[in-house]
């Protein structure tokens, strides 16, 4: 990979690590707290050696108590610090649901702006890693219903850095989702130094004329692979990487659909009540008469989880080939 001056090639783990490191270096209000973030340096080694450089007061190995990992971070944020709380795996965020939904997301609103909650909650999510029931979940649909919260799920290393910087700078709570299968799989050029990518802006990563595909996280990469294959077959597919789930970039989606007149939403989370449901409803409300085909969603079946056994995991997830099939069908509709 040829590297542009002022950039370097990082994978997603390295992009998170570099961004956190720079935030710790540049602002001593920044505090990292979570399970095994100190001596071990996080289970994916994202914060390796941070504790040696920044000390145990700023890199806190917490007790195994997710509600208070978030709740204590809320208090720190209300008191002027800039906490970055880590939930070791998204599957373990449920005990913190109240603190995220009932407290962090409502601090500004309920105090009419007197108190704010500039808090980042980072967590690895997603499957395809033989993580079984409790190391594979997607949690975004459980949280995207909540005004007051922002949710980000970047796919590319440069977006990871720009959006994590934006999340850290943001005066409101941000749930920052890192797809763990992309951690080491996905590499890309990342600009050096501090820059931000606005939360709430999607990215058209491939332009096309005949179909709009909207996705986020790991599936962005697979959808792109499938769209490129269709290109070779003479079909033109536009791919949108949502990047932010809340607020959602309605303009980019609607503009694209107005142009291509067809919409496919692809996500790893199960279908019922997922992000695709909201996008479908929004497009149906705002652009129904621009559509030349029914909106289509390719998502996981409505079962509680992907299984540990390989066939169960495969059956739950969508493959690039299945994505290509869904795209072909819609283009030809």
């Amino acid at each position, binding site marked *: 990979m040829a590297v542009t001056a002022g950039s370097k090639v990082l994978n997603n783990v390295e992009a998170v690590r570099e961004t956190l490191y720079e935030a710790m270096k540049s602002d001593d209000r920044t*505090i990292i707290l979570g399970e095994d973030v100190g001596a071990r340096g996080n289970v994916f080694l994202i914060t390796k050696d941070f504790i040696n450089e920044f000390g145990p*007061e*700023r890199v806190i190995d*917490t*007790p195994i*108590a997710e*509600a*208070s990992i*978030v*709740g*204590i*971070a*809320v*208090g*720190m*944020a*209300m*008191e*002027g*610090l800039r*906490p970055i709380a880590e939930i070791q795996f998204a599957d373990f965020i449920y*005990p913190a649901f*109240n*603190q995220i939904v*009932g*407290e962090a997301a*409502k*601090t*500004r*609103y*309920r*105090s*009419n*702006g*007197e*108190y*704010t909650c500039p808090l980042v909650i980072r967590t690895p999510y997603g499957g395809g890693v033989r993580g079984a029931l409790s190391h594979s979940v997607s949690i975004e649909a459980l949280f995207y219903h909540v*005004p*007051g919260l*922002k949710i980000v799920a970047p796919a590319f290393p440069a977006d990871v850095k720009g959006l994590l910087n934006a999340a850290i700078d*943001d*005066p*409101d709570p941000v749930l920052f989702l890192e797809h763990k299968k992309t951690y080491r799989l996905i590499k890309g050029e990342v600009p050096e130094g501090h820059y931000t990518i606005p939360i709430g802006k999607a990215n058209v990563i491939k332009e096309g004329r005949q179909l709009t595909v909207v996705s986020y996280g790991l599936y962005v990469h697979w959808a792109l692979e499938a769209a490129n294959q269709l290109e070779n077959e003479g079909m033109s597919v536009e791919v949108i990487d949502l990047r932010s789930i809340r*607020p959602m970039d309605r303009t980019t989606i609607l503009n694209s659909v107005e142009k291509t007149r067809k919409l496919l939403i692809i996500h790893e989370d199960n279908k019922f009540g997922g992000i695709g449901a909201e996008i479908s409803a929004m497009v149906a409300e705002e652009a129904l008469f621009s559509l030349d085909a029914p909106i289509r969603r390719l998502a996981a079946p409505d079962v509680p989880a992907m299984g540990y056994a390989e066939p169960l995991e495969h059956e739950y997830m969508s493959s690039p080939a299945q994505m290509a099939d869904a795209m072909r069908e819609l283009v030809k509709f």
Partner: protein
Amino acid sequence: MATKSKTSGSASTLERRGLTDEQLVGILRTMLMHRRLEGRGFELNRQGKIPFASAGEGHEAVQAGAAMAFERGKDILVPYYRDLGLDIGIGLSPLEVLLSLFARVADHSGGRQFPHHYASKKLGLYSISSVLAAQLPHAVGAAYALKYRKETGRAVLATVGDGATSEGEWHESMNFAAIHKLPIVFLCENNEWAISTPLAKQMANPNIYERAEGYGMPGVQINGFDPIACYAAVKEAMDRARTGGGPTFIEAKCYRFLAHTTDDDDRTYRSREEVAERRKQDPVPTFERLLVEHGVLTAEGLEDLKRSVLAEANEATDRAESMPYPAPHDLYTNVYADSYQPWR
């Protein structure tokens, strides 16, 4: 380390615990104002002027005593919903209370929150939800910030009901505060009831303070009807917290004389005899008598005090009632920092 402190004020003795006459009268005034304003909430509800009110009758002593140990301009209070007396005691005005009851636009939350959910940086008063024990991790996080910034001389006072100590967030907060020796005092107002559920159904050991030792912090039990004892215990604990001595858990035993809220009917779960029996120890007339008997206040002075409390409460009621509600479009502000166009 778990200790029971002795009662310091009986009708015959007055142990001042370092309190001046002015401070003693200040405590009584907070108690009187607390009772008056909560009574006002119930009256306004019965008159159909406000939809809801709650009351802390029976909590006046512990709250007014604790508030006297709070250093204004320095300490942080993270209360729960039944802490009107504490809120007033650290400087909240009757007008602010009435604005909250009437849900006016000038209320701290702009009329969004239930009564007595205040938020004032000036007072060091944290914003809370109604979710039990959810405020405790915030108090711990704030205490962590004080310690991290090496702001000695400041501490956090966090309160909780007896029932809410069954919540996981109570445990998590106690544990973290003890591990990091944070400048925080947990004050539990044990009124023996959690709506209709008595203590015996919340916990096998009714001595909540004994749990503190298990977390590695001192636990103290005090008579929550004795404002001076409450002041002394909270003061000692706050001083320890302010000087790097770590957290303390204080259990103040009191009682809730009225129903849980205006929407509750406590006759459905506890006898009138029980309530009448506990009323005999009502801390408000008891403390009035104590101060008069020991010459801190004359009988006439007490009447003046009561009159001034009533006048202030009446004036605040009239003023707040005449002030405007939030406008419908106020629903849309302060969702995020940036301007935000909600879908609808």
